[in-house]
């Protein structure tokens, strides 16, 4: 018996090895399958053609929708890359006044849901907002329509750049200062060293962040609908709510998936071409100290971003809250808070643990099938929340009806659905939606581990599990923390799936915001919105401190 175990552990029995390989491969396959279920429901909408809707769209809006969506993708993509990378580099590699605070303050906008920033900006800057009213007092003809694509791009960029910033920053941190120093000693100037050395080395991380930001842009409904800007997402909702045509809506949604598959393929391709491996985590002991006007410019740049994307909107929210809190704030808020946090933490643990297992399995046992499964598993993130929620509900409803409820009754239980309206169902929905969020940082940091390390461990007789816990986990800590933080904050901000799948009484802050904004009561929505932002700050700050 003991002999057999040792043999298997050393990998000498080929059958055992193959078996274990497939056991590990089962993990990504299972994850892919879970995500595939709702996605398949959505794609299967093509089984029935909706020719009149498409003819109608073609003759009226389709071109415009495509154009709007592409403009937004391009603008936000450019915006988050430039902002995220430049800020990350300044904050990790250079030194300027207030850098230490700026380094973490720049992550704060992450706690701000896109739809909240959108209604704050509109409330502040629109024709009837305080700013334009003031300006009109000086100059009575003053008229600017802020409901412009550029404003939406700016808002999305302001909320989404932290994805790129965080991932790029942790890449720059792990690169260490030796790389920059070496390149500069070899005669490159600061800019050259950045573009030729630091940037290419951080490429996987930057692309991972960028693709998260773009997927979120594609799926956004809240912000674009506040601005009444027509994109693919708004068209999806219009077909569903307005034309009562869920099938056409699902068909439109599956086109979004096409965008995503292309994006993910590009990401894989870019990652494979830009492998960077770094065995140890080195600290930036020597920063480039900026001098003269440069130091103030850098400080001004970083702080003005923090101010515009976070501080000012927060102040506006607080001002609105002052007007209204007595009406809105009551003991219920503790419960809303509790639910928000419990769901967030539960989902974050589940999702990150799974993504770790998947990434680990991919590292050792990837084949074509599992690679495909992992790609599928990332698609849930790009679907508009409601569409995904509906896919999930249709699947869960089916599983409940045909399998789980009969099984439950067989064991003497009642007919209440198990998955829809249950906590397990909601957590699974979060899993489907946010797996990609966790996979980004986990994968990109696992890729930076030099293969020689695990190989050495294996040669020394370490088992796969031991390898995971003793070698990988300690080195992956920054990546795992980033992933936990991202998922936690994302789940707390998530609205449509929570609305549709929550068990009775499990209202969260996002649900409360929905109740208010959908009635156009933005001021009252400021109270749950401010609470949500403040609660979101706690994990952001905790994780920032730990990831240093």
């Amino acid at each position, binding site marked *: 018996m003991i002999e057999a175990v040792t043999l298997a552990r050393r990998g000498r029995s080929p059958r055992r090895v193959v078996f274990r390989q497939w056991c590990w491969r089962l993990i990504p396959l299972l994850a892919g399958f879970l995500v595939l279920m709702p996605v398949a429901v959505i794609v299967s909408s093509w089984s029935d053609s909706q020719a009149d809707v498409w003819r109608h769209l073609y003759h009226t809006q389709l071109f415009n929708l495509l154009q709007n969506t592409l403009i937004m993708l391009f603008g936000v993509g450019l915006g988050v890359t430039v902002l995220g990378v430049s800020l990350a580099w300044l904050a990790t590699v250079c030194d300027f006044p207030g850098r230490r605070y700026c380094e973490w303050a720049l992550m704060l906008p992450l706690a701000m849901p896109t739809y909240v920033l959108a209604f704050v900006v509109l409330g502040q800057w629109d024709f009837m907002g305080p700013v334009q009213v003031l300006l009109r007092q000086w100059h009575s003809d003053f008229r600017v329509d802020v409901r412009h694509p550029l404003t939406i791009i700016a808002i999305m960029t302001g909320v989404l750049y932290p994805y790129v910033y965080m991932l790029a920053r942790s890449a720059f941190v792990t690169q260490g200062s030796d790389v920059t120093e070496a390149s500069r000693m070899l005669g490159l100037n600061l800019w050259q060293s950045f573009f030729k050395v630091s940037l290419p080395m951080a490429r996987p991380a930057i692309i991972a962040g960028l693709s998260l930001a773009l997927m979120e842009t594609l799926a956004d409904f809240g912000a674009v609908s506040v601005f009444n800007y027509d994109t693919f997402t708004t068209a999806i909702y219009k077909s569903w709510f307005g034309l009562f045509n869920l099938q056409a809506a699902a068909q439109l949604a599956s086109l979004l998936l096409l965008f995503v598959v292309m994006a993910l393929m590009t990401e894989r391709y870019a990652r494979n071409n830009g492998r960077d491996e770094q065995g140890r985590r080195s600290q930036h002991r020597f920063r480039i100290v900026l001098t003269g006007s440069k130091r103030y410019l850098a400080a001004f740049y970083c702080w003005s971003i923090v101010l515009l994307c976070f501080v000012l909107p927060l102040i506006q929210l607080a001002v609105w809250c002052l007007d209204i809190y007595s009406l809105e704030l009551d003991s219920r808020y503790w419960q809303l808070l509790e639910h928000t946090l419990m769901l967030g933490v539960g989902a974050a643990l589940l999702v990150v643990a799974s993504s770790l297992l998947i990434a680990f399995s991919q590292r050792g046992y990837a084949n074509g099938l599992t690679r495909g499964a992992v790609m599928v598993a990332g698609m849930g993130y790009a679907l508009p929340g409601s569409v995904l929620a509906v896919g999930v509900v249709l699947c869960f409803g089916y599983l409940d009806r045909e399998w789980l409820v009969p099984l*439950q009754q067989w*064991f003497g239980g009642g007919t*209440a659905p198990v998955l829809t309206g249950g906590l397990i169902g909601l957590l699974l929905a979060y899993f489907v939606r946010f797996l990609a969020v966790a996979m980004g940082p986990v994968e990109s940091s696992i890729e930076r581990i030099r293969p020689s390390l695990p190989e050495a461990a294996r040669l020394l007789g370490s088992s796969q599990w031991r390898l995971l816990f003793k070698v990988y986990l300690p080195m992956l800590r920054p990546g795992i923390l980033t992933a936990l933080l991202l998922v936690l904050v994302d789940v707390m901000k998530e609205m449509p799936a929570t609305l549709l799948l929550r068990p009775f009484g499990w209202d969260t802050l996002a649900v409360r915001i929905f109740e208010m904004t959908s009635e156009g009561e933005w001021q009252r929505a400021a109270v749950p919105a401010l609470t949500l932002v403040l609660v979101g700050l706690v994990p952001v700050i905790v994780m920032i401190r730990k990831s240093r």
Partner: protein
Amino acid sequence: MGIKTFSQSLLTAAAVSLVVACGGEKAVAEAAKEQTNTTAHEAPAETGELVVYSARKEHLIKPLFDRYTAETGVDIKYVTDKAAPLLTRLQAEGENTPADLLITVDAGNLWYAADQGVLSPVESETLEANIPSYLQDPENRWFAISKRARVIVYSPERVSPEELSTYEALADPQWEGRLCLRTSKKVYNQSLVATLIEANGEDKTEEVVEGWVQNLAAPPFSNDTQTMQAVIAGQCDVAIVNTYYFGRLEKAALDKGETLPLKIFFSNQDDRGIHVNVSGVGVTANAKNREQAVKFVEWLSDGEAQSMLADLNQEFPVNPTIEASEEVKSWGSFKEDDVDITIAGQRQAEAVMLMDKAGYR
């Protein structure tokens, strides 16, 4: 439904392979999980509990649930969401659904829910007596519980009420650069245009909507409140909104000791009357507590419940014997379009496409 059958076969295949792959152990674990689950959310007992899916927002409906529980001891559990997702959830859950009642806003949504077969007919003399026939489903699958009108609001400084007459007249060139509208994606505008099509035919309506679009002072807004604020700020002079949004702004202004620089105009008084819309309720087809649910709907249609429902959101009661609040009455009385409101649902898709063609975003 093609989507359903295909996904079903797909899922069956997938589930079978999953079960085979996982073997016995998993199934046992699964079963154990189920058992703990059953205790966690057991199906409601025969009496004493009701489950509601509500598209009417929590703060506009919960006080009624609380009141009913206090009066009768029946506990009410609920979830809120938009109408379409709730309906999909009802359909997906099928006969296992815990929901006894569906509450939603807009006649179109009610019509569609009934059309999809998730609601069941209720024969009740009380309801027939309390709710006018044009405010309920001809087959008694849903009943309106509150009513709102879609009115024209104007700035009394820049517009005199004599200039106003009908929705259609807002397409006239005299309103060029003076009109503000909410987005055509909102169901209230879809229902309004659906009734315009019913009254005037498709071609005439398309002209009207094109006229509106030409008269717009700013691109359509995302909600009624913002639309009215644009009138207040002077961006435009007239707008089309629901009465209760006006009521909220009026109340907010009064609370601050100001008067709202806006007035309501009830349009189309010389022809068919103003367009009204409703929020309503239906008993689900698979309700577990049907009797109790019917009693609750009857309770909603009468007495204090009607006043509460209406006053919570400054709406009009549907029961003609119940009076509206003083605030609401101060807006004046009006003639309402008593076209069968299921038209709003039947012609909704047509209305959406027409607005797309006319370039109304």
